[in-house]
């Protein structure tokens, strides 16, 4: 049985759906990547799972976690799961840590909340956790305030904080986006290693397929608040079927391949992501899609199977990529 099962999850601001009809499963220990450009609804989906949406946002549909329904669950109930069984890593390490508390205290707090551990014991645990996220002098760093750390160090603190409660599921919302390129790889490797060691499930949100493909087993592509394609990493990378996934893939692999041929123009997806509420009806990608027809005025149903796509004109499953 799936550890996490999303069925027709929608997130609305007033009458406006920012996330529509999102369904996918995450099994215990599985690593699922959600990709898509900014504004595709990835972060809102993660926040909706954890019940941490802003006051002005409402979620409907179903989020089943280990057999329990989380949509509509009380704050008290959700707060028992958060930190203990579901942990989050946020995008902005600069603002995600409390400026007035030492990082050791912030890491140890999870244990104090859920395990009833005392102040001293939680500090010993925090120092150990800082060691696990590769701080060379964890004793010293535990006494520091967030503003005394670099962005990469703060993000490692965030990771320590997330694994502190030994969760079953970590939701990582673009954990490397705000970091220097040189630090990004290190953080990803660390996250990858720790998630493996803890044997916990991971939902990794990224806008870059390259990031997801190195860590994850499966990929969910989102656009305009909808899931447009899901499949195994191999399926998606070798045989993308949705024109949007293919385009994303082209932009991310082009950077890796075409660095030397300076003359060529880097491929980009034509047009830009509309702001929320300005996506076209039907398939949200049809304005930017070269194969769009009148059929696309209707949002296509997702097919069933392990590699699924919501598109009236999917790319041929058997064609190798690059034949577009």
């Amino acid at each position, binding site marked *: 049985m799936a550890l996490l099962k999303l069925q027709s999850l929608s997130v609305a601001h007033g009458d406006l759906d920012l996330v529509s009809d999102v369904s996918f499963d995450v099994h215990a220990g599985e690593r699922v990547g959600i990709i898509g450009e900014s504004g595709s609804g990835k972060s809102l989906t993660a926040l909706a799972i*954890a019940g*941490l949406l*802003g*006051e002005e946002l409402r979620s409907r549909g179903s989020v089943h976690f280990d057999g329990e329904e989380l949509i509509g669950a009380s*704050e*008290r109930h959700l*707060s*028992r*799961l*958060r*930190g*203990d069984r579901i*942990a*989050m890593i*946020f995008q*902005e390490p600069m*603002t*995600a*840590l*409390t*400026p*007035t*508390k030492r990082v050791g205290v912030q890491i140890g*707090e*999870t244990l104090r*909340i*859920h395990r009833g551990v005392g102040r001293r014991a939680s500090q010993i645990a925090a120092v150990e956790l800082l060691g696990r996220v590769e701080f060379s002098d964890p004793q010293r760093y535990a006494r520091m*305030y967030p*503003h005394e750390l670099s962005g990469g160090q703060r993000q490692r603190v*965030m990771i320590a*904080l997330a694994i502190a*409660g030994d969760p079953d599921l970590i939701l990582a919302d673009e954990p490397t986006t705000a970091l220097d390129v040189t630090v990004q790889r290190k953080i990803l490797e660390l996250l990858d290693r720790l998630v493996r060691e803890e044997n916990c499930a991971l939902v990794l949100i990224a806008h870059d397929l390259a990031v997801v493909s190195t860590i994850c087993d499966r990929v969910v592509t989102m656009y305009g608040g909808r899931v447009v394609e899901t499949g195994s990493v191999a399926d998606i990378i070798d045989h993308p079927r949705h024109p949007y996934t293919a385009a994303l893939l082209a932009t991310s692999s082009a950077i890796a391949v075409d660095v030397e041929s300076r003359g060529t123009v880097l491929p980009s997806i034509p047009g830009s992501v509309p702001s929320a509420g300005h996506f076209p009806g039907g398939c949200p990608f049809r304005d930017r899609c070269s194969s769009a027809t009148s059929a696309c005025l209707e949002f296509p149903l997702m097919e069933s199977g392990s590699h699924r796509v919501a598109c009236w004109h999917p790319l041929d499953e058997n064609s190798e990529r690059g034949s577009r």
Partner: protein
Amino acid sequence: MSKGRGWFVVRRLGVVLSSLVAASMLVFVFLNVLPGSPAEVILGTQSTPASVAALTIQLGLNKPIWRQYLDWMGGLVNGNFGVSYISGQSIGHEIHQALLVTGPLVLLAMLIGLVIGVPLGLTGALYKGRWLGSVVGGLSQIGIAIPSVVAGILLTVGLSIKLHLFPSSGFPGWQDPWGSLRALVLPAFALGVVEGAILARYIRAAVMEQLRSDYLRTARSKGLRRSQALRRHGLRVAAIPVVTVLGLEIASLIVGAIVVENIFALPGVGMMLLNAVNNRDLIVVQDIAMVVVTAVLLINTLVDLSYQWLDPRLRGRR
């Protein structure tokens, strides 16, 4: 870090001292360019040119102005506030007595302001968009709109004249602590209600900003409920703008005390100041101005020091 901390205190004290000197010069110059000789006012209608001249010499008003300033300042530094032109009494003693009324009045008003403002502000932020939040917002709006004079008169009519719960005026003196406290309750309320309403709005804004912060969301992701996360992670940072406003509010409470003391016939600094102005007792006015300036400067310094205590990001800088 401790050395940086010590330096900060030393530098702040330097700022306070130079501000005091600047303020004393301003106060002195302003009051001395006012028309009318204190000697004429004191002698009133029976004055003759000769008696005015004699009194002028007796008061030292014939000396050059810089000399008068230095005499006054020299006295202040030595704790000698001078002698009142009118009563002939030691001003230091009178101010001391008056401060024993105004000080507790302002403190009590601040306490009442906090007791009203903190819960109102927190409720307003936590229940924003719901009916309770709107009610709180409306209440604080009304509170701000009421001048303390009106609040004072309403309270007097309601609680003392109709219900006889508190005395409407007068002050028995601290040898009767219970009676004195009762005498201060209504005036403190008149001052504190407005203060509380203003505080409530600042607290509401500061707390709402915290509720939107990324780190409060992180705290909730660890398993704290919204109110717990706010209490443990948000309030300390939210306190910074609130402490700033509180510091400014104390200054305005001291000013408000002048009005309220006159309504309730309290023998505080405010009443003493008003009498001194009426009597052209310039040296008393100067002294009180300096006492108020000193109090405000000290409060501002405390506020600045509290920032460092509240927010580690501000330590060891400047």
